[in-house]
């Protein structure tokens, strides 16, 4: 396109005066010559950039990559095709600087989520009074009930069939009868097919109906409850709740509103898959074995339950995180098998009728 020439308006970026000018293309020298009264400006073509994302496609606003303020406004967009790099980025920020700050941000977030928040949560968890813990647990339970509901209409219901409930209560009474003094324990059954159980702050233990269906003997169910009571006693859920309060806020900050919205929802659901440390799980297992022995139940019921989870494989969604995913599940099974003292009397927790009543607690 030789011989391009066009009227234009030149803005020198020193005053707001709009200076009418004549722009012409000097293809041989690769220059755009902007004649404006007494001054002439020469813009190298490869330095000319079109100001992007313009709403009005009737005009063309041009700038120099190496000058922040000068602008040339042309009345049509014909020149665009003669510019070699009209949309190449104009560098405004040093890449290394971004990299430095990005690593600083990453470090500070990692430090906060993995060190500061856990340490503070562990310290603070000791000082929450029991009433505070119970309130925290109740709020979390409501959130989980609402999060698990698929219809979006109402939280999933708790199962309160009176006869089944009575059997469950007497089973818990038998479990805790001979143990050391415990915080107040409340066992909830949720009407949901997940094969899962978890503990919440303030002594709330939550069982899903799917777990009761999967257990083949009352002793297996009792073993899971005893394991969760073990978490309650060592205050694992309280620490976990405090940690996630800190971490979720930070993650929401990083991912912004809309990707972040989904992420926070996702994390809220993950709350129930409490990932405790291996030590915490081992301690809860040990507590459960002790509790079962004192209640005259063979502690290898826990091993039976673990094996059932393992056999369920991929279908045991909720339980995966809690029991299955641990690489040490085999060890834990073996440990529970070995916990039975020789000559331990085999006593049943309840008769078959009561067990069937308990299994109908949601109906």
């Amino acid at each position, binding site marked *: 396109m030789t011989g391009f020439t066009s009227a234009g308006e030149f803005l020198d970026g020193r005053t707001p005066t709009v200076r009418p000018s004549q722009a012409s293309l000097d293809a041989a020298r690769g220059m755009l010559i902007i004649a404006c009264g007494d001054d002439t400006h020469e813009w190298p073509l490869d330095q000319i950039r079109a100001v992007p*994302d313009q709403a009005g496609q009737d005009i063309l606003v041009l700038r120099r990559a190496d000058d922040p303020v000068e602008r040339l406004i042309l009345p049509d967009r014909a020149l665009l095709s003669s510019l070699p790099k009209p949309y190449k980025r104009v560098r405004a920020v040093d890449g290394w600087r971004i990299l430095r700050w990005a690593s600083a*941000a990453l470090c500070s977030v990692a430090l906060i989520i993995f060190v500061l928040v856990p340490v503070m949560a562990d310290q603070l968890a000791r000082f929450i009074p029991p009433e505070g813990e119970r309130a925290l647990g109740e709020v979390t339970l409501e959130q989980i009930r609402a999060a698990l509901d698929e219809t979006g209409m109402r939280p999933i219901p708790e199962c309160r069939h009176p006869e089944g409930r009575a059997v469950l209560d007497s089973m818990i009474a038998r479990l805790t009868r001979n143990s050391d003094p415990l915080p107040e324990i409340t066992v909830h059954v949720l009407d949901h097919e997940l094969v899962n159980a978890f503990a919440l702050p303030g002594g709330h233990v939550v069982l899903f109906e799917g777990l009761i269906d999967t257990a083949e003997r009352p002793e297996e169910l009792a073993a899971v409850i005893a394991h969760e009571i073990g978490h309650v006693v060592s205050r694992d859920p309280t620490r976990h709740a405090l940690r996630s309060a800190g971490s979720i806020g930070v993650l929401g900050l990083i991912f912004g509103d809309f990707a972040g919205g989904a992420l926070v929802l996702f994390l809220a659901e993950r709350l129930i898959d409490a990932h405790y440390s291996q030590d915490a799980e081992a301690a809860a297992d040990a507590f459960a074995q002790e509790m079962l022995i004192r209640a005259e139940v063979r502690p290898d019921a826990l091993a039976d339950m673990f094996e059932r989870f393992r056999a369920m494989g991929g279908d045991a969604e909720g339980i995966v995180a809690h029991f299955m995913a641990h690489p040490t599940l085999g060890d834990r099974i073996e440990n529970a098998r070995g916990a039975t003292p020789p000559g331990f009397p085999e006593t049943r927790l309840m008769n078959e009728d009561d067990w069937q009543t308990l299994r109908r607690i949601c109906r």
Partner: protein
Amino acid sequence: MPPAACTTARGARITTRPFGHIGLTQDTPSENLPGPWSRARGLDHEEAAPRPAPAPGFGERLTGDDPDVLRTSFIGRRLRLFWLVLKSGFLTVLTLGIYRFWMKTRIRRWFWSAIRPGGHPLEYVGDPFEKLLGFLFAVVILAFYIGIVNLLLMFVSFAVLNGNVAAYILSFVGVIPLWFFAQYRARRYVLARTRWRGLRFGLEPGAWGYAFRALGYWALTLLSGGLLWPLMTFRLEQYKSDRTFFGAARLRQGGRWTMLYGAMKPLFLGAGLGLAAAGMIALGFAGWGSTIALCAGLTLFYGLFHYRVESLKRLTATKRLAGARLELQARPWRILWITVFGYGLTALALLVPMVAIGIALSAMLGESVMTLSPQDLSLNDLGGAVLIALSLMLYFGVFLMWSAASHALVTVPTLQHYASGLVIRGAESLNGVHQRARDAHTEAEGFADALDVGASL
């Protein structure tokens, strides 16, 4: 504008009238219009064909006869913006939110360039990398604050107050001053990256001063039951205006706060009707009472728009910039209509992703009932994964559609209405203004972005 016309190569004298076309007709191709810019595109034959002498008047239609009075036009097609928002929103989702800095920059460039006071577009020169940097900067500072403060608040509310509500209220109250601070900082960044006719705008530092004043005036407004609202509106606007620059020229907010009471008339009327309705209901006339209550509600709803638009008009009319005066013509009813109708249409637009996903979902469910047996665990898992994918798609689809449609159907017409009513009188005096230095503003609007400070633009 000064008669600083220069003589072109051909000797044709070009007037200093800027190009651009008048207001509301969107996307009119300029080559059809007569005027200095109506030259044909046959550039190859440039030398051979004598160019028609530029007819004066193209720019005049915008500026009028008087170069001292500049009117503002708004040029831009909604559909283009719709696609821009949809496309960049999609990229934002794909990049887990990182592209949002580019999205924001591109949308702002579009809106800024659509507004042409005196025929010359505003330019937004903010840079996405700069925003990314500002965001990282804010993360370093705020991650600490948010992580630790959230944790402490949760602890305090459960240890001392036994409730979660207290934590929410506390963390909300704790963030309010920071929110005003971030709002001012974001305004400073945006103004520093806005140009018109080559000159930078600017805002002096003063974010904490703004935050404390905002807190104080909000408290006064709430304590006075809304009677001192005009005081808050005026003083906060004055604080911002008096620190705003165009080039080296400082903007000045004149007038008095009491001048805004006129804008509150419909709100007072609505409040009066509300009292009357409460009285009627108390006296046992429930039927009449509820009718009047409905009227009161509608009047108050309109009153909010009326106050917003009328106070903006009054505040604009009393601003001065280097001898130039501003004037804003806008109609509350028009803004009310745009908002109600625009959001109504946007809600309808949401049906598109919902119906699409709904069809996909029902097709999938129908198929799984027919072909998958419950024992077939792997296939069931596959179904579950597809289900999760579909619900994620629904979530993002609705979100994308909402932001694209509300930009195109609410923000564009609102801005168009305000922009085309903006007049600069005494514009000749602006020619004496000089450029201001660049405001580096390292943190950009990182705090505002991290704290999600309202503004959609």
